[in-house]
């Protein structure tokens, strides 16, 4: 009996929980043979009629065979399968000095399903027996060619890799294979990983033939011996236990025919099987079978072929399968739903042992080998590694970038391999930080925050590679992606653009601003009069303080004096060049709705010292054969003078050191000199934090989809998510190179003059050379600024 997709092929009574389609009883022959209606025709006429009819049927039959032959060769020689594009995370690269913690390494190894062993490790395993780590990588085809499996030893000391030894000369670098994180599937949702016959373990082939088709290499596509054996077995057992179909017939059925069960179809199948066998080598047919065979269902996705089957059930490539895993994989073919080892483990175990027994009887295993494995557990990984819904928010962003360059059809069928920038450790860290903060806030504030949502993006701050994306608190949910599609007022996250415009225009960080109430009449006659968050005014404050403390009145006045067009221009150059921005004064305080992705683009330009750096999710694309197809290269474009960004960054570092972002110090050392900015929109509907270290940039938003007010500020909502994520990543302190035209000077803000270091009211600030005050004054007590500063800093 031929294999049937998603239903048991034969044997047992198929009543699995997966609701297999009810078996149709074999239909009666579609047409009964015509009999002659003439009761007593003359012999001669009858003979002629029979001869003619025979000729007609013979000719029709011949035409039918020719047609089937064409169908077979056409399909078998063309592109046999639509292979979904495979998407990979970035590979983990190990080298001396690499920042890596025990926790991250354990996570990365489990993600790739490396087994912990206690003797000498083989490919895909690791040992910690020597005190350090010994890992044997699996090898992988990268952009620049195949990287073979490597044995590597190293230790982790002080959060870094040390003493890395891979037996090679010079500074060793060992790459583990990149984790597979998803695919782009064809409409029929068949997924497979193609394998060549020589990649398939001998034992798997032997087991398959022993169980499914013993005479495969002898028969001509059909096996009368097989049918007889199945018939005998089924008769003696009193139930259908064995099918008599050859592998060739099973392949024909899955490949060319519907799952309809009728004698006609059986006949067509038999003819086609013979034709297939006639045209092609046995090895070709076997290889096609191994890639075609249906092995399970992962949601909408149908798991086809032993290559993917191995990853799906055991998390390892085919060549690493153990005997009992091979037996299970072969056993599952009979009924992937009925024998699903995750849902029906007992049934699957029984079936596996049945296969092991057949392997023993057929001489695939000797008694000793059989005894060694028969009591082993199933060895199936709990959750398939290969989950397409694991990082939906990142994949969505990646697909949008990919669709600019590739046709959907090619993505779904050409078996492209897409290498992305996703860093699974950063992703998990962001997810956990986001979910933890949601739980904390909900338990603190109760029902009012029931619908609180979160979104965030993290990048490598120097290259713009996106390492993590979260689109909502349900991180596995493939729906509304807030990181890309939630446009929300950005509040004070707009302020750096105002200060940058002012710095470009010749102001410096010591320039005094008036933090006093203001009434600005707009062209339409209405009055704009923003207030500070705490409803207090602070008098004269230096720019650096006004930004660090996020004063609205001071910033609004600054924006008006700089001119809103300048602010718009700066925002555009920061990365919003294709976004229509409202040319209104309120823009300076964040009256513009942006997605976290757009905010990341802006802050990315600040983090890369004024060089706009496109956010990338893809590094390269290879064809199914491993041929390089396209690289997405690292590009930069200078948009700002390095000096202006250097000064702005200093003010943002001050924000984290002493301003609205100082609670980050609960999680992160001040030595990291992080730069950041909090953002809170009107009535606290949105809570934002954006900031960067020497190697990571992150933007986090929190709020409610229906735009309800919350009790949260940027510091109490989004900031802890950002800080917790940063804290679990290996950090490099932020130390920008000081541009040529920047000088550090002691400034007396009240008198707008240089002063001496020992003066009470002196601020040590980076100033662009052409803005350094000419006057130099000696210490001078008094002034509101000083008093203000004494309150603030001392």
């Amino acid at each position: 009996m031929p294999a049937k997709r998603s239903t048991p092929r034969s044997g047992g009574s198929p009543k699995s929980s997966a609701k297999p389609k009810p078996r149709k009883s074999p239909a009666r022959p579609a047409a009964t043979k015509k009999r002659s209606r003439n009761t007593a025709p003359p012999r001669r006429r009858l003979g002629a009629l029979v001869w003619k009819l025979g000729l007609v049927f013979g000719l029709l039959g011949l035409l039918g065979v020719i047609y089937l032959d064409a169908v077979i060769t056409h399909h078998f020689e063309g592109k046999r399968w639509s292979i979904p594009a495979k998407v990979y995370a970035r590979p983990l690269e190990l080298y001396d000095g690499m920042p890596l913690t025990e926790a991250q390494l354990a996570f990365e190894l489990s993600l790739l399903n490396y087994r912990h062993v206690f003797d000498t490790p083989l490919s895909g395993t690791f040992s910690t027996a020597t005190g350090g780590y010994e890992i044997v990588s699996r090898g992988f085809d990268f952009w620049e060619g195949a990287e073979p499996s490597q044995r590597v030893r190293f230790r982790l000391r002080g959060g870094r890799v040390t003493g890395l030894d891979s037996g090679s000369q010079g500074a060793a670098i060992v790459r583990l294979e990149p984790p597979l994180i998803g695919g782009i599937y064809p409409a029929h949702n068949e997924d497979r990983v193609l394998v060549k016959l020589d990649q398939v373990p001998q034992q798997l082939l032997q087991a398959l033939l022993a169980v499914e088709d013993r005479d495969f290499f002898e028969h001509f596509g059909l096996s009368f011996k097989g049918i007889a054996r199945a018939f005998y077995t089924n008769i003696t057992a009193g139930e259908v236990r064995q099918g008599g179909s050859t592998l060739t017939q099973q392949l024909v059925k899955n490949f060319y025919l519907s799952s309809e069960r009728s004698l006609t179809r059986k006949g067509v199948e038999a003819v086609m099987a013979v034709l297939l066998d006639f045209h092609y080598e046995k090895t070709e047919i076997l290889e096609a079978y191994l890639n075609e065979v249906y092995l399970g269902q992962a949601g909408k996705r149908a798991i086809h072929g032993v290559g993917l089957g191995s990853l799906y059930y055991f998390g390892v490539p085919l060549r690493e399968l153990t005997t009992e895993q091979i037996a299970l994989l072969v056993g599952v073919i009979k009924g992937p739903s009925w024998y699903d080892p995750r849902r029906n483990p007992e049934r699957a175990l029984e079936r596996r042992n049945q296969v092991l027994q057949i392997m023993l009887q057929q001489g695939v295993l000797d008694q000793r080998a059989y005894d060694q494995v028969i009591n082993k557990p199933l060895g199936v990984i709990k959750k398939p590694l290969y989950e397409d819904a694991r990082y939906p928010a990142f994949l969505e962003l990646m697909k949008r970038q990919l669709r600019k360059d590739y046709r959907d059809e090619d993505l779904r069928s050409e078996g492209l391999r897409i290498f992305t920038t996703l860093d699974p450790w950063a992703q998990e860290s962001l997810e956990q930080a986001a979910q933890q903060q949601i739980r904390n806030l909900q338990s603190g504030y109760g029902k009012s925050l029931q619908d609180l949502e979160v979104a965030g993006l993290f990048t490598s701050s120097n290259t713009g590679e996106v390492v993590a994306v979260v689109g909502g608190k349900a991180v596995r949910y493939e729906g509304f992606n807030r990181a890309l599609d939630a446009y929300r007022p950005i509040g004070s996250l707009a302020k750096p653009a105002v200060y940058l415009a002012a710095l470009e225009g010749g102001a410096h960080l010591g320039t005094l601003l008036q933090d006093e109430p203001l009434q600005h009449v707009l062209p339409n006659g209405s009055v704009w009069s923003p207030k500070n968050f705490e409803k207090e005014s602070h008098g004269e404050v230096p720019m650096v303080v006004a930004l660090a403390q996020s004063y609205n009145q001071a910033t609004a006045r600054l924006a008006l004096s700089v001119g809103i067009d300048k602010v718009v221009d700066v925002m555009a150059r920061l990365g919003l060049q294709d976004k229509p921005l409202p040319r209104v004064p309120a823009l300076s305080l964040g009256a513009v709705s942006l997605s976290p992705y757009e905010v990341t683009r802006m802050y990315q330009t600040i983090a890369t010292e004024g060089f706009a750096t496109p956010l990338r999710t893809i590094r390269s694309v290879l064809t199914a054969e491993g041929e390089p197809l396209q690289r997405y290269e690292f590009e930069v474009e200078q948009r700002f003078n390095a000096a202006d960004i250097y000064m702005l960054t200093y003010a943002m570092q001050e924000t984290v050191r002493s301003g609205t972002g100082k609670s980050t110090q609960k999680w992160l050392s001040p030595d990291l000199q992080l730069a950041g900015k909090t953002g809170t929109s009107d009535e606290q509907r949105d809570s934002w934090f954006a900031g960067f270290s020497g190697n990571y940039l992150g933007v986090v938003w929190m709020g409610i989809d229906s735009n309800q007010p919350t009790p949260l500020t940027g510091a109490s909502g989004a900031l802890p998510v950002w800080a917790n994520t940063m804290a679990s990543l290996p950090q490099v302190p932020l130390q920008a190179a000081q541009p040529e035209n920047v000088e550090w000077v002691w400034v007396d803000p009240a008198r707008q003059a240089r002063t001496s270091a020992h003066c009470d009211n002196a601020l040590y600030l980076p100033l662009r050379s052409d803005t350094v005050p000419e006057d130099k004054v000696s210490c001078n007590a008094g002034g509101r600024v000083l008093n203000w500063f004494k309150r603030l800093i001392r």
Partner: protein
Amino acid sequence: MLSMKAWCVMLLVLWVSACAVQPVDTEISDQDLIDSESSLLTGVPAADNLLQQGESARQRGEYGAAVNHLERGIRMAPRSPALYLALAKTRLAMGEYGSAAQMAQRTVSLLPAAPRGAEQTAKAEAWIVIAQSREKQGDTAGAANARANAQAVW
């Protein structure tokens, strides 16, 4: 046409006597820039390894491979001007002048205001890449400006 070695020797002599000899010749051909090797290292041995592989690939004319090695290096040492400069020279070799100039500009931004030793060489080379790229794009004034900046490094 001087050979690469001769150029290296000449540059070396120039740098040794940097303070004494003025002005310095900044008329280095594209080919010599492409064939040159960084004396500035990244501080991460593995990234140095990739820097060296990237430069060899560039000298062999395998630009795709060169970019690949150098970008890998940048992931390990993301603020190393040596890698950005090597990338800028590769873009120059590929005839991508806009990109070469930008990458060289980024190199300059990562180097200290008053560079010493190998950093000094790197900074001058970065300005020369900018000058050369601007020339190819028809920006004569910008090129002269960049060349003056290269000169001013010494």
